[in-house]
């Protein structure tokens, strides 16, 4: 009976999918949303899905890029791949992907199913689609309004992961790596210390509790904020000395790195990307995809999820970096990018109230998870904090890390970019950085493209 209902639901969903194509509706998930509304466990009834070739990608940061990279590389290696590249990473998005890639009777018609999965959705999706491969990029603080603390997500993951699952985890990220205890097999990906690795010796530097014994975790060095070679100060939990995949000989100028004996050349390169390449290589090797095919995929990879853009405006170079709000790691990464540029510069930061879902609120916690000192000490002619309400807290954070008040402008305005960027004309420097969350992106892009 349920199968009959599934076929009927699938037909409706396929018609919806066709209609969205004909009428060019945006929104990739409409068919999936309707299907899941009509039949809650709709995803469960697709046939010909090889669970050994279902790859879930989840984690706090890097899900979209990692999913796109793995799907692209496996496809370039000549395999048939279905994926939710549009970032539709909840149950309805998974349903939409299956609707698009199946026959009228629900027979899945691709070899691999590679899915970005929202952390909170993993448990429910796994119940109807028990894929055997799970990649976790990292598990950090993020969207605290819905995720609470990282342990909240950790518990959801540990409830889901079981001995049928092969886990691909970052060897240098303590929280997600601890999920090894629940998996049947763990494959560790890693990056050796390199020219962009760093140490922290500031009095106010903090790490995290050991996921296994709650004592302090110490880092020998960091490759990214909160990700690096670690060890617990109490138990024997530490980065594995012999990870399965380790990236070495990283040359950021030449865009090359080695993995084993193979040298890879890539278009995008920074520590975040290196970890994405590492997990991709780990997955590809697991599926016996050879170096030449992996390299072929890396060579022509274009990341639709890249969050950096450059504009020209009245002779000035505007470097626009977007972050996920309430996400300290992406914010710190943007700050580090600015700090690494020692040329004179102006820095505009626009972090907004959080309006992802009701109630909107003014959380500014994550400013203090990040360090601004590197930026403050990197020849900044002017600091600007803009946005409604939280601009003052952001400005204060910069002051706490040493930004001189007389170099700081605060604009308590929303989207009034003529006012916010009026100071650009007065600046001596031609080197401008803007950091914002996703919300004002389209308006800022339009502002500079119009002015251009």
């Amino acid at each position, binding site marked *: 009976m349920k199968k009959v209902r599934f076929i009927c639901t699938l037909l409706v969903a396929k018609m919806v999918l066709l209609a969205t194509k004909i009428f060019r509706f945006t929104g990739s998930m409409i068919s999936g949303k309707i299907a899941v509304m009509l039949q809650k466990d709709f995803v469960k009834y697709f046939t010909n899905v090889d669970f050994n070739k279902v790859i879930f990608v989840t984690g706090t940061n890097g899900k979209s890029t990692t999913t796109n990279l793995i799907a692209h590389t496996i496809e370039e290696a000549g395999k048939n791949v279905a994926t939710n590249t549009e970032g539709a990473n909840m149950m309805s998005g998974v349903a939409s992907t299956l609707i698009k890639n199946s026959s009228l009777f629900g027979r899945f018609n691709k070899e691999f199913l590679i899915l970005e999965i929202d952390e909170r959705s993993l448990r429910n999706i796994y119940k109807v689609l028990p894929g055997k491969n799970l990649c976790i990029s990292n598990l950090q*603080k993020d969207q*605290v*309004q*819905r*995720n*609470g*603390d*990282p*342990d*909240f997500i950790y518990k959801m993951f540990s409830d889901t992961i079981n001995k049928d699952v092969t886990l691909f985890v970052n060897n240098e990220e303590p929280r997600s790596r601890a999920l090894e205890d629940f998996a049947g097999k763990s494959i560790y990906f890693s990056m050796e210390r390199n020219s962009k690795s760093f140490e922290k010796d500031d*009095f*106010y530097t*903090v*790490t*995290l*509790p050991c996921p296994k*014994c*709650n*004592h*302090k*975790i110490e880092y020998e060095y960091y490759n990214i904020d909160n990700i690096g070679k670690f060890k617990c*100060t109490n138990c024997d939990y530490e980065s594995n000395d012999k990870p399965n995949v380790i990236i070495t000989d990283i040359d950021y100028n030449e865009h090359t790195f080695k993995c084993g004996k193979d040298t890879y050349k890539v278009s995008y390169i920074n520590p975040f990307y290196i970890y994405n390449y590492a997990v991709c290589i780990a997955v590809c090797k697991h599926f016996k995809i050879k170096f030449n095919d992996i390299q072929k995929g890396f060579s022509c990879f274009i990341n639709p999820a890249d969050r950096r853009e450059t504009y020209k405006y009245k002779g000035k170079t505007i470097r626009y970096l977007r972050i996920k709000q309430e996400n*300290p790691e992406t914010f710190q990464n943007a700050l580090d990018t600015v700090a690494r540029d020692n040329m004179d510069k102006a820095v505009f930061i626009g972090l907004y*109230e*959080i309006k992802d879902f*009701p*109630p*909107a*609120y*003014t*959380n*500014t*916690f*994550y*400013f*203090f*998870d*990040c360090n601004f000192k590197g930026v403050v000490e990197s020849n900044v002619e002017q600091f600007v904090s803009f946005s*409604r*309400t*939280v*601009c*003052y*807290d952001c*400005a*204060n*954070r910069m*002051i*706490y890390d040493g930004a001189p008040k007389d170099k700081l402008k*605060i604009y*308590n305005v929303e989207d009034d970019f003529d006012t916010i960027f009026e100071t650009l004309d007065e600046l001596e420097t031609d080197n401008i950085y803007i950091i914002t969350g996703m919300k004002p992106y389209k308006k800022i892009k339009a502002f500079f493209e119009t002015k251009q």
Partner: protein
Amino acid sequence: MSSEINLAWMYPDILNLHGERGNAQAFKHVADLLRIELNIDRIDDIEAKIDFEKYDILLFNCGELKVVPTMVKYLKPQLKKLKKYIKENKTIITTGTTSAFLGKKATRIDGKEIEGLGILDLEFKERELVIGDDIYFELDDGTEITGSQIQMVDVNINNEKPLGTVKYGYGNNGNEEEGCIKNNVIFTNCLGPVFVKNPWFAEKIIRQICELKGIEIQNNGELDYEIEKESLKATKEFIENKNNIIK
């Protein structure tokens, strides 16, 4: 009597959820403005024996509920000294779910119970649904505090005295009570760097300690809180313009 204030920043790496290292920085910042010597010691080792005689403030920032049993395990053998510390009207500041270590018990979603030290008559119950929202409350003397709370527990303070009265937000459990205060043991649900956003709260605590210890405050002028006051004003405006709250 010492002319300086000593703050023990308790387990900074373990109690590190919401950028609350800013609270340690805020106490230093405000003390500098008052021209008072304030020293901060990090207590990194959760097994450490605490020198209660030395400290005037024990700062326990917000951590995950799962670390509370470990805290209780290592603080329990020091309970007698901790009680003496509290009796001497010395200050303890604790934020968010960490505060369960001071209470009687915390009940997790799966029904498992975490036993606290029983210093305060508090009971915590883990929530299925996280509440993330602004909070705006007033202390007894009218001091206004704004911030945000990520509420993963409901808190019943039984017969203890609330720290403040909620003007907007969820507080302890959706009633008008926010936090708890007993002697100078302060618990608040207002998370993150609450003392950065509300330096007048840190100042109030520092002034009390100075009075207790007979420390002369060098700067008796009005402190420069221009940006923080603008933040308070903007946050209150934002709160006034919204009418949504999850109970």
